[in-house]
């Protein structure tokens, strides 16, 4: 795989909370153990995180409560100063820039959406969405025009003059989203944006989010503790536990090749047919075999199942160029649905 400059590059990021955290890491560059930290009365919220986030991808960080997700994403925007490590934002060393440059960068290149919306209670919807432009000194007419556009984008037209407390949770988060998009950020951080919402609304908001990303193609860091949400949205997922990233990969990778029992535990209850695609379940072609029809390699198992399960058909799997790269049949689909290890198509 070729490696263009990642949008965000993290190397060896540590965040240790507690008194004397800064002096704690420096003397030895080795990794402190739990016992070391305990003795010093410190909490390692992020341990040695290494990540590359590519332009235009939806990168989901997933882990249970207290695993350090929020801390990690706040390190990425320097809301929290990492204890050690290196962060490159578009190749630029984020930790070395001055306070002023940081403010500029946040004003123009970063957007963030918060779990509890963080709307300003004293401003109307319009005022909230225009706020980031207001503090940049954009004049009233221009910023309100832009704000109206954003409000329309998230489907809240007509509510410009409402106050946050007059809106439902889902509507409030739409305002949060519109607000964070008003400055056209290059990178978009979302810290559990839908966790405070009811399940039905959450689903609706996920669809909305995917629709927006289809239009905007931002680089996205999305935090969640809900694995279903992660696989619905993610291009790639990083799983965190106790401050450490224990696996990074595409949703399918995590399901098929969990790095640890912990990851396997997460993926166990996931409906595999929704995640796995034809490519992952096909078997090699037997030369001279008869194929009834073909389908694209990215088709999800769930969508091809009813075409196969009650028949004896053999369906060819084709890649982007239209050449046949494998075959799916009843047996391979049943394996997935029942949870047997699917055949590997090497």
């Amino acid at each position: 795989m070729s490696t263009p400059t990642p949008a965000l590059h993290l190397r060896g990021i540590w965040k240790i909370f507690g008194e004397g955290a800064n002096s704690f890491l420096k003397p030895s560059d080795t990794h402190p153990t739990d016992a070391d930290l305990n003795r010093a009365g410190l909490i390692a919220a992020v341990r040695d995180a290494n990540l590359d986030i590519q332009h235009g991808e939806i990168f989901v960080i997933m882990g249970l409560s207290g695993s350090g997700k929020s801390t990690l994403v706040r390190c990425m925007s320097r809301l929290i100063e990492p204890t050690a490590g290196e962060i490159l934002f578009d190749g630029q060393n984020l930790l070395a820039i001055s306070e002023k440059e940081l403010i500029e960068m946040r004003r123009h290149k970063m957007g963030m959406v918060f779990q509890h919306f963080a709307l300003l209670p004293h401003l109307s919807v319009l005022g909230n969405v225009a706020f980031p432009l207001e503090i940049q000194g954009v004049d009233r007419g221009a910023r309100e025009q832009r704000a109206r556009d954003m409000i329309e984008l998230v489907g809240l037209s007509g509510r410009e003059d409402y106050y946050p407390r007059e809106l439902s949770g889902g509507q409030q988060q739409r305002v949060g989203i519109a607000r964070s998009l008003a400055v056209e950020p290059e990178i978009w951080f979302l810290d559990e944006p839908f966790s405070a919402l009811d399940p039905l609304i959450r689903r609706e908001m996920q669809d909305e989010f995917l629709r927006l990303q289809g239009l905007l193609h931002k680089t996205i860091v999305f935090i969640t503790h809900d694995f279903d949400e992660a696989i619905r949205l993610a291009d790639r997922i990083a799983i965190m536990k106790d401050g450490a990233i224990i696996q990074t990969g595409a949703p399918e990778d995590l399901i098929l090749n969990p790095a640890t029992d912990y990851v396997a535990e997460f993926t166990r209850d996931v409906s595999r047919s929704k995640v796995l695609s034809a490519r992952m379940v096909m078997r090699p072609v037997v030369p001279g075999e008869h194929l009834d029809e073909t389908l694209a390699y990215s088709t999800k198992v769930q969508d091809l199942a009813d075409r196969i399960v009650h028949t004896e058909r053999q369906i060819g799997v084709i890649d982007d160029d239209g050449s046949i790269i494998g075959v799916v049949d009843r047996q391979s689909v049943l394996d997935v649905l029942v949870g047997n290890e699917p055949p590997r198509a090497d």
Partner: protein
Amino acid sequence: MAARPGSPGPTQTPIWFWAIFAGLATLGIALLFSQDHAPYLSKYPRDWIIPLRFWISDAMYWLVKEFDLGLFTFKELTRSISWLLEWPLSIANNFLATGFTFSTEPGASVILPPAPWIAIVAIFGLLAFHLSGLRLAILVTGCFLYLAFFGQWHSAMITLSSIVIAVPLGVIIGFVLGITAYRHPLFEKWLTPILDLMQTVPVFAYLVPVLFLFGFGPVAAMIATMIYATPPMVRVTILSLRQVPEELLEYGNMAGCTRGQLLRKIQIPAARKSLMVGVNQVIMLSLNMVIIASMIGAGGLGFDVLSSLRRLAIGNGLEAGLAITLLAITLDRLSQAFTDRPQHSHSPQGRSVIGRYRLSLIVLVILSVSWFASRYFPALGVFPESLQITTSQFWDNLVKWINVNFFDQLEAIKTFVLINIMMPVKRFLLKTPWVIVVAVIGLIGYRLGHLRLAALGVALATFIAATGLWSKAMVTVYLCGVSVLFAAFIGVPIGILAAANSRINRITQVVIDTLQTLPSFVYLIPVVMLFRVGDFAAMLAVIAYSIAPAIRYTILGIQQVPVHLIEASSAMGCTRSQIRWRVQLPIALPQIMLGINQTIMMALSMLVITALVGTRDLGQEVYIALTKADTGRGIVAGIGVACIAIIADRFINQWSRKKKREFGLPV
């Protein structure tokens, strides 16, 4: 509840505590009967007294007379501060009360008369209507009409003009200090004990130094008012900035706010509601100071009350006192209405210039029209004396009548309580050897909070002894103690009733709210009317002034008892009175004790004022110091009162925290 290691469950007071206590009691009795052996244990010897008050007086003298800051002396500095403050104050005073002369010579002819009374009534009425509605407008207009009809207008405007300047200044200073403390923890660490002291040392104690530094007059009075009224604003500012949700701050940073933008556009607006609580406090405390401030030169209503009290002209005092109260109620309700005013929802964006300044325009129009009109109809400018009424004669007669017809009954009550309750307590406290009292304080402190608390209690109590204030302090403790006991015996049952019955609750809330808006001095008037001077009269005033928190916290404590506990007890078959006595009260007790603590604090601050009706305690000491302009004497006695307050406060808080933790209630 399973006892966790390290935090023992509810425990009985251990044997050793009672053993030592009994030992001390015996020792105390022994000392009493053998005073010749070790007299210094019973009475703090005169030779041991630390002449702290003289040191302080000398230091003050040096500060005022000799301290030189290089370019100018300290006194020049303070006098120029007064000069600076004089400006806004005299403009406000000219505008509201005396009119502008544009000349400093006394007796110069008035060029622009003060704002016509009709204009002030109209403006305040309109403001009330704008902020809240018709009801408040009627209340406010009514209050101001009282001032006009009862001949209080001029004095009230003098008072109002100092409030109008003192409050914004106090708010701004408190706000700036609060923000600085919020941003710099080290500064906060220094500031907190100073604030504690400012709020526990009685006002009288610092009137003298203020007098020395700033001279006699309205400016000095205003400075004293600000010293008294600002600390809560500082605390409220720190607290309300801390309460702004972390996420909002993070959002502000992510949006790229500078520090100033964060403060102006996020923190202050988000904290606005609680900041306004601080503003309201400043207003109320400033009004509370009105009478006291008149002792160092504030004129106005405070002066009227004070001089009538001194002349025992009850009727006049009552009317002026009522005027202060009405002013307090008006300003209180107005500031609350300002806080709670509905934010206009769906309001059109970008209001026109006229729309935005509409209110100020109206005010200007009213003022100029009425100024103009009052040239031709003077009755519109100055309320005509022929229309004024007074009820003072009626009150004086009433008092006379009561005293003629009920003298024996009132006297009987007074004597009964004095002889059977107050005197024994007083004698007990005065007789108990000081060493024993200090030791008991240490013992209780140790039981509650181990060495630190014990050391604090012993140190503060010893300070009182060492400055030669022991017996006066014991009189303070006795007066305070008896008053608080009465307040608790009256207040807690009322609270219990109110908690159980929503109608009683509503009535009680109104009564408490009113009680708390009354300036402390006002309580003296009816008491003096009926019982003249002395400990009993003082006690009644203290009870009336300090009872509100006992009621309020009792209601709160009982309402905070978790519902599931009450349901569980009913399910077990408890009767209603069993639930009340076995479940609600024990669990509410820590909260009730916090209320009692507040009652003690208020009682102590009131006690200083009751020195005016002739108590012989620390309050009197402070008051004498004030009349003799003796800085050291006043400050030392004031710190003595603060010591008592701090001991009571720390001990009760510690006890309450401990209990709450045992019950698993939020601390």
